[in-house]
């Protein structure tokens, strides 16, 4: 592009400046982005690709997020609610006038720096089951200890990452709210009933946390009694996020610095997972009997919840609300889709073929569409329940976004170690019919080599930033052809080569297609190759996503951020969202140009990285 030179000179100045003054650089960068990002939208009907990029749509600059928006978001009031919240705010965030005291002085945990309970008995610390722990641990929890529970070794891309070390299931069962180690955990999730009985805790034994659970119920009820709702309490480094779903209360206590909007969505998914297992009819049980204890109904599902919570730190689907596909040659995916289509036409509601977290193909009966969140929860349920692996299963499940009140039945069968077939039906007697279908599907998949191709794709991965074509030619729409392409782009500037990662310092990207509800992310490569770096990038994207979708400030079209870790670029159009991470020294103009190339690249290979078009032809 002809304007590159002009921009690169000004941007080069920025690239040496680790902390550009936002007020002077933002306009420039937005101008640059607006001017240079060409609108490349995905085509969803498989019509011929448009040749040259369409001129950019005129996006207003005025509504773009200022670069200091992050700090604005952080300044949201301590208790996000209107009305008479004074006492709760006092007791929880300042440690004065304590209203509710658990035996282990939980307010200390929440506030992180407050004085131990100002009321009550000195001896009232520690539950009877773990006596002898004094309140002195309270001061320690404000430290920013390394979280021992959230990490996990990851490899591959976000979408298909396999944790080689992370083990699902509850750990640290011997902890309770009196344990120093429990207090140091960075991110807690609790589910409790409206009578204050614990239902689920990420860490520690639910029963030993009964006192803590009662405290949470008291806080929620106290505020609710004033006709209000407590949604967020900020206390030192901690955010306490509440979600009330009828008789079920969900709470997240976190010092991970994730946006509270993200934590709230994570609670929504946690609730969705519970609904997937039990349906929302569970509410009726509470109506009939407030004492109702739902833990026996959730028996054996610890691993389901722990793996969902774990996915909050690596799976972009949890905040993008989109699913990702296993990269496959178009005919291969078509072959799988065709046989699934046949099943769907025989009365199955949804036929889904997946490889780990990625979709190979998916077909819904007429008009039935599957929400990406439901897919996420369903895949998580199946993958984290060991029993599905060992035999074919027929299990009642509920899709919360499809119909939260009722059960469907899922026929689940693992075709190999990673690939599994799910056939969802409303008919509880369909097992044998679905079993027959499965045998036919399996035969077709073997004949058309789909399973082998899937395994190969798992090994090869999808899009690698190093393979970003320099000059995307509109007809070379194949991932594999790009793999062999000579890499160093002859025309790229010298500074481009000096940077790590892909061309022009491109480290990673996520492209989300809005129409398709799908996203594709590049594989991790140097320098984002340790789990810690991957998690940090994940969190950066999560923050970026949240700020781009801020309901009060947004919607936003573009955002350019530079900090010590990355240059982050985000571009949202009607058709797609692109999130890209670059070397912190990357040239701004080149980064923008590179984003354009990424969009073109995705478009060139959309046949392979996305599931396109609902109705593949039948054989």
């Amino acid at each position: 592009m002809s304007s590159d030179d002009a921009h690169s000179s000004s941007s080069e100045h920025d690239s040496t400046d680790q902390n550009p003054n936002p007020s002077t650089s933002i306009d420039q960068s937005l101008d640059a982005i607006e001017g240079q990002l060409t609108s490349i939208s995905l085509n969803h009907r498989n019509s011929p690709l448009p040749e040259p990029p369409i001129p950019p749509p005129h996006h207003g600059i005025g509504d773009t997020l200022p670069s200091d928006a992050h700090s604005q978001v952080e300044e949201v009031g301590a208790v996000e609610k209107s009305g008479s919240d004074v006492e709760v705010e006092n007791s929880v965030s300042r440690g004065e006038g304590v209203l509710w005291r658990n035996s282990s002085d939980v307010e200390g945990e929440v506030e992180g720096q407050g004085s131990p309970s100002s009321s009550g008995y000195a001896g009232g610390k520690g539950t009877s089951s773990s006596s002898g722990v004094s309140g002195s641990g309270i001061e320690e929890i404000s430290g920013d200890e390394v979280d021992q529970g959230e990490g996990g070794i990851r490899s591959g891309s976000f979408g298909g990452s396999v944790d080689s070390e992370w083990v699902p299931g509850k750990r640290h069962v011997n902890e309770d709210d009196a344990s120093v180690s429990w207090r140091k955990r960075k991110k807690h999730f609790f589910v409790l009933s409206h009578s204050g009985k614990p239902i689920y805790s990420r860490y520690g034994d639910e029963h030993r946390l009964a006192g803590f659970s009662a405290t949470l119920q008291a806080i929620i009820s106290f505020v609710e009694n004033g006709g209000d709702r407590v949604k967020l309490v900020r206390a030192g480094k901690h955010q306490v996020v509440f979600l009330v779903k009828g008789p079920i209360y969900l709470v997240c206590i976190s010092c991970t610095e994730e946006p509270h909007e993200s934590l709230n969505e994570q609670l929504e998914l946690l609730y969705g997972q519970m609904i997937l297992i039990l349906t929302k009819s569970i509410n009726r049980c509470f109506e009939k009997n407030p004492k109702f204890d739902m833990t026996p109904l959730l028996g054996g599902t610890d691993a389901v919840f722990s793996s969902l919570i774990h996915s909050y730190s690596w799976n972009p689907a949890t905040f993008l609300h989109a699913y990702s596909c296993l990269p496959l040659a178009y005919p291969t995916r078509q072959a799988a889709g065709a046989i699934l289509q046949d099943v769907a036409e025989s009365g199955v509601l949804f036929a889904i073929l997946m490889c780990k977290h990625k979709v190979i193909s998916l077909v819904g009966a007429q008009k039935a569409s599957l929400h990406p969140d439901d897919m996420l929860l369903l895949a998580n349920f199946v993958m984290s329940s060991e029993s599905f692996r060992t035999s074919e299963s027929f299990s009642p499940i509920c899709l919360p976004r499809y119909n939260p009140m009722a059960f469907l039945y899922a026929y689940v069968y693992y075709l190999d170690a990673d690939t599994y077939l799910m056939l969802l039906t409303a008919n509880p007697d369909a097992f044998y019919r679905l079993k027959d279908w499965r045998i036919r599907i399996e035969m077709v998949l073997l004949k058309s080599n789909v399973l082998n191709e899937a395994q190969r794709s798992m090994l090869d991965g999808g899009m690698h930033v190093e393979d970003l074509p320099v000059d995307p030619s509109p007809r070379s729409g194949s991932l594999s052809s790009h793999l062999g392409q000579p890499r160093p782009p002859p025309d790229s500037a010298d500074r481009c080569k000096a940077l790590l990662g892909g061309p022009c310092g491109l480290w990673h990207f996520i492209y989300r297609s809005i129409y398709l509800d799908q996203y594709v992310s590049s594989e991790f490569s140097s320098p984002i190759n340790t789990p810690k770096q991957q998690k940090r990038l994940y969190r950066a994207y999560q923050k970026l996503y949240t700020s781009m979708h801020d309901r009060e400030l947004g919607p936003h079209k573009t955002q350019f951020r530079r900090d010590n870790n990355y240059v982050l670029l985000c571009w949202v159009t009607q058709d797609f969202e692109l999130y890209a991470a670059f070397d912190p020294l990357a040239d701004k103009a080149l980064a923008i140009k590179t984003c354009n190339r990424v969009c073109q690249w995705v478009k060139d290979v959309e046949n392979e990285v996305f599931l396109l078009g609902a109705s593949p032809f039948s054989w």
Partner: protein
Amino acid sequence: MASRRRMLLKVIILGDSGVGKTSLMNQYVNRKFSSQYKATIGADFLTKEVQFEDRLFTLQIWDTAGQERFQSLGVAFYRGADCCVLVHDVNVMKSFDNLNNWREEFLIQASPHDPENFPFVVLGNKIDVDGGNSRVVSEKKAKAWCSSKGNIPYFETSAKEGFNVEAAFQCIAKNALKNEPEEEVYLPDTIDVGGGRQQRSSGCEC
């Protein structure tokens, strides 16, 4: 989560302020007593694991305050209670007279299924004071009231000396447990996909 199959019992302690509710709870859970009086503000929660007839369960004890401004919390606090403990001070007649109010208040707010048979336990506390000389509520009087309300079990206790506290809470646990309703079969609906899809499916096997 539930594979351990333990039960959690929610126990509410009610009574006028100063009768010794917090002290009883602390004596039971922590085997500690403090003669210093600190008014409970809002509510205190303690938990204790109890073994009963080979079953392990957890008592979640809700000790509420008498202050006016927390009265509105009744519904939320009492919801889903498995047992309610009514405490009076045998040396203060008023605290005994108020038992009736506490009981009624509880039944209104918690609105249990079967109010007639909801498990209450009554404790007459502070029997140690003055060697029993300042006592104004006789055991007979207390027991009479208890039997008139559907044979509520009655215990005379001293939180200070730990007298009868363990026995009282054993009884509380037992009664809470007794009240546990039969496990209902959980049967949500199945989706009715509607129209001919279901029917059509049976005939279409290519």
